[in-house]
Structure formats: C-alpha cells, structure tokens
C-alpha cells in the first residue's frame, strides 16, 4: 500500500515536472525576406525593423511562443529573392514574413506554393501575389482594393470630381491600382479628365503634369512609389499648379528622401492604415519603441510587419505549431488557422478568407507641416 502511494506521488511529481517543462516557450522560426539594400531598401528595412519590435515584445512577455527572426535580403529582385528564400529555409525557417515588395513576392510565393511553405506578406500588394495559390496571405490591401478604396474615399469626402491619373505602365503595382481606381471612380461619378503614363526611367514629367493642368483636374491620383511622385510634385510646383495629390501606400516615404523639400508635399493625401501621429496608445507605444531603437519614425510598412508577427503568432497558436514542425507541415495548419482568427493590430481589425486577401477598413492621411495626420 505504502509502495503504491509512493509510486502515485512519484508519478504526480513527474507529471508536474513534465508540465513545468511544457511551459517552456516554443521557439518559432520566422524568416523575414525583404529588400534591405537597393532602391527599395526603405521598405525592406522598415518591415524588418517593425518585425524586430514585435519580436522583442513577444519574447520579453513570455507566453507560448518565442520567436527567432531570420533575416534575408532579396534586393527587390525576382532572382535574388529565390536565393534568399532558400537561405531562409536552410537556416530552419518554418514560415516566411515577406516578401516586402510585390514582384519578388510573386516569384517566392510561387516557389513556396510548390514547396508548401507559408507566407504572410506585410506589404506586397499586387493581386498576383495571392492568385492561384493558397499559401500566401497579406496584411496589406491588394492593389485593386487600394485603387477602389481611393476612389471611394475621394467620392465620400467630396474632394472633387475632375481627376487626373498619372501612372507607371511598366509596373504591375501602378497599373493594378490604376485599373480599379478608374473602374470604381466611373461608378461613383468621378470624371477622369486626363490619364498619362511614364516608365521606370522617366524623370521628365512636364508633359504628364501639363496635360492634367490643361484638363483642369482638381485631384491628381498618383498610384506610384515616392521617387517619381517627388518629381511630379516639383514639376507641378514649377507650373504653379496646385491640385490635391492623392497617393497610395507607395507614396509613404516621400518625407524621408534626403534633401527633399517637404513643403512640396504639403497637402498631399495618401491611403494608409497607419500614421505615426495617431493618438491611440497602441500606435504611440509602437512609435516610441521604434524611435528609441532605430532613431527614426516608422512608416506604415513597419506597422504592417509589426502586425504581421502578431498575426503569425496568433495563427500558430490556433494551429498548434511546434518547434520541430517542418515548414510543409506547418503550412497547411497555418492556412486553416488564418481563416479562423481575427487580429486587432496597428493597421486595423483584420480577418482573412481563403484567397489570402485581408478585410479591414481603409483610411487616408494628409501631410500637414511635414507630418502625416489622419482625418481631413
């Protein structure tokens, strides 16, 4: 009898010890792939840094998971991204937070689809990124959604009816947004008075801006990155043309161009789910940590990546991912979990469906005195 009790007690002790061991956080290996060098380095570094803030927070808080962040550089190049992807998998990554930009993400995501690796991209917004595959999910809106959301915002806030569009017809990002903007704009009663194009190497925008001015456009829609946008702003200033410029997420970063005269960007509006000046506690907490660690104010890409880490952890928890799970096994579990979770992040309250696209409310900010401000 005594022996039995002793045995029982020993078993209980052993089980408790095991339970105590089971409380050890599970190491989750997440790879961040983005352009940390090259022309798009602004975006890749932003997503990496945003992820790092989230990783620090989660690891410090304890909890079920501990994150090991593996970082790889894809140089915004569709060939180099595959090297980065392979390097990440070799380093033991179980899932990918990336890639930051659309074209490389299409390439890497396709590879991941064949290999069964889960991708959550913070900012790659073209539809091709999630098309024909189930393993890629987005934190950001797809470009078509950005185009439609911009048209909706302009119509709802009655910013004007005569709209000019200047877009880069060599870039899927730009053309994708332009297509849905024009379609939705027509349905909402916006009049597209001028539509002009340019290419990657264009530096002279006098013709495009001149035509918009000639057509009397009150709003100029700029679905492009901030570099050509800054040239357009200067050209318009030279021509004494003062429409409302409306951009999308690629416009973000225009204030950080070295030597840029920020007064040129005064009054520019852009579709963005995050501004660093928002008053809520979550944003301010993130912004102050980011400024303390990296010495600069975060752009929305950083917020997207920050949310991305938290989304991955939420989905992993739902799916029951373990430390030794191979990426292939984790992939299907994560896909199932993503459709069931709802995450309240910096960039909004987000849910997903099986296409991989996110659902959340679009918001726009205005540049006032060199800072982004929400509201009109």
């Amino acid at each position: 009898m005594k022996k039995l009790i002793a045995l029982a007690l020993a078993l209980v002790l052993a089980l408790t010890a095991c339970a105590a061991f089971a409380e050890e956080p599970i190491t989750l290996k997440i790879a961040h792939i983005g352009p940390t060098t090259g022309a798009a380095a602004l975006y890749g570094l932003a997503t990496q840094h945003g992820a790092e803030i989230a990783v620090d927070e989660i690891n410090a808080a304890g909890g079920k998971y501990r994150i090991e962040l593996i970082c790889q550089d894809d140089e915004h190049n569709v060939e180099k991204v595959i090297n980065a992807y392979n390097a990440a998998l070799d380093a033991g990554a179980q899932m990918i937070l990336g890639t930051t930009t659309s074209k490389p993400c299409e390439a890497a995501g396709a590879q991941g689809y064949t290999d069964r690796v889960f991708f959550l991209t913070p900012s790659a917004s073209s539809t091709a990124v999630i098309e024909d595959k189930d393993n890629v999910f987005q934190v950001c809106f797809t470009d078509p959604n950005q185009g439609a959301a911009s048209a909706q915002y302009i119509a709802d806030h009655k910013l004007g009816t005569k709209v000019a569009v200047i877009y880069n017809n060599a870039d899927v990002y730009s053309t994708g947004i332009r297509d849905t903007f024009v379609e939705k704009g027509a349905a909402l009663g916006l009049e597209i008075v001028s539509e002009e194009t340019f290419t990657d190497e264009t530096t002279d925008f006098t013709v495009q801006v001149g035509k918009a001015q000639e057509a009397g456009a009150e709003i100029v829609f700029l679905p492009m990155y901030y570099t050509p946008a800054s040239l357009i702003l200067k050209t318009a200033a030279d021509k004494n043309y003062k429409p409302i410029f409306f951009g999308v997420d690629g416009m973000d970063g225009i204030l950080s161009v070295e030597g840029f005269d920020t007064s040129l960007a005064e009054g520019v509006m852009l579709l963005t789910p995050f501004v660093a000046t928002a008053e809520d506690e979550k944003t301010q907490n993130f912004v102050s940590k980011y400024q303390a660690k990296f010495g600069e104010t975060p752009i929305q890409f950083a917020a997207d990546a920050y949310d991305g880490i938290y989304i991955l952890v939420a989905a992993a928890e739902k799916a029951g991912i373990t430390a030794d799970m191979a990426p292939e096994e984790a992939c299907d579990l994560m896909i199932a979990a993503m459709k069931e979770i709802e995450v309240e992040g910096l960039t909004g309250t987000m849910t997903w469906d099986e296409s991989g696209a996110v659902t959340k409310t679009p918001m726009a900010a205005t540049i006032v005195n060199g800072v982004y401000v929400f509201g009109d």
Partner: protein
Amino acid sequence: MIFLDHLINGLSLGSIYAIIALGYTMVYGIAKMLNFAHGDVIMVGAYIAFCGLQYWGIPPVLAILLAMVFCTLLGVTIEGFAYRPLRQATSLAVLITAIGMSYLLQNIALMIWGANPKSFPTTFINGSNIRLGQLNISSATLITILANVVIMVTLTLFTSKTKLGKAMRCVSEDRGAAELMGINVNRTISLTFAIGSALAAIAGVLLCSSYPILQPTTGSMPGIKAFTAAVFGGIGSIPGAMLGGILLGLIEIFGKAYISTELGDAIVFAVLIIVLLVKPAGLLGKPMREKV
C-alpha cells in the same frame, strides 16, 4: 500657349542632352572611341555637387566648380588607366572597357552614397520663375538653355581659334599626320577627356536641378539618350551634337504631348532608326569613305 510650354520644356531637355552629347561626340571625334562611361561621370559630378551643397555647406558656384574639377580629374584618370593602353587594340575591346567602366562607376557610387534616392537641392537655382500669362518658365529651364548656348559658343571659338582647339581638330582628322606635325597626341586626347568630363559635371548639375532625383543610375538613361542624340546629329561633329540634342529633346516632348506618353521613348528611338536609314552619318555628319 500650351504649345509654347512644350517648346520651352523641349528646349530645356534638349539642352541637357546637347551638353552631354558634346562629351560623346568630342571623344569619338578625337579619340575614335565611344565612352559609355560618360553618363556615369555625369552622375558622379551631380553627387559631388550634392555633397558640397548638402553636407559641406559650400556656396553653389564653388560646389559646381568642385564637381567640375573632380570630374575632370576623374575623366583624365579613366582615360589614362583604362583607354590609353587600348589605343592600338580593336574598337570592340575599348567599347567593352567603357561599358565595364560605366558599371564600375555606378557600383562605386552605390557603395559610397547608398541606393536611397537623394533630392538634389534646387534652392540655389530657383530664383523667380518667369510668368508670361499662362506660361510658367522655371529658372532652372532658363539657366539650362542659356548654359547650352554659352557652352556651344565657347567650344566653337575654342576649336576654331585657339592652338589647342586646332590641335584637337588635327588629331581627329589624321592622328598620324598630327603626330608628325609635332602635336602631342596623348596630351590632346587627355585634354579632350578633361573638357568632356568638365562638361559632364555641368550637365549633371543642370540635369539634377531640373529633375532633382539623384541615384547611382541617374546618369544611365540620359547618357543613352544623349549618345542617340550625338549619333542623330552626326557623331564627331560638335554642331551636330548640339543640333541632335536639341532636336531629340523637342521630339521627345512633342511626341509625348501630341502622340502618346506611353510611346514617348519608342518615338525617340524610332526617329533615330529612320534618320540612320536615310542618312547614316547623321544630320550634320560627313559620310566617311574608308579605303580598304
């Protein structure tokens, strides 16, 4: 009124192409080689001027002079190290060297200044914009066109009136005979590169004053377009470079304005093809018969 607007923009853009094309045409005329690194010397000049204005806070005129001096030294150095040893080699070897030099300059610039585009400070060139009714002419445009005229006049006087200028024309006509006449060919070619590179620095500052984005690849497309302009106007001919540059700028702007912005670049290069089919030596070029 809008036509005038396009005209002036075309003249401004054309002036930049003309100044760059001068570098190409002079070097081809005298050293008989195509210096594809010229566009990147422009980029380096622009970066030096940027550093001067932004980081070292020196007055604009000094910054431009500094860029000119630096580019001149750079041009002469490149010539001495990379092109002179290949004087007797096939033109293909020199061409490939030039392309390699172009990439070298781009990547060194990438290493030094990083890939993040920089905004060239235009406050020094932005005086008051002239306003004629609906027309707005920025001061950068005016200064560009003016600079082009001044350079054209100076260079024409230099090559026709001064001893060094005449020596350059001699070397371009017949290198062997020039050497026999006592002209130091090496020094003349170095001088050509020096002048070309100094012009490149000016072109860089003017380019970035009108289009204030500066990246390591900034010189690449203008370089190609200016090379096109030089060929278009007749490679080896200084007035040809001027004419070619301005015409190309006008064609590009008018093509974009009245035909289609999507086809803008295609139109420019299509014109080049047509001209070369009809008049292979270019508009002002003299057809050269070679004795085989």
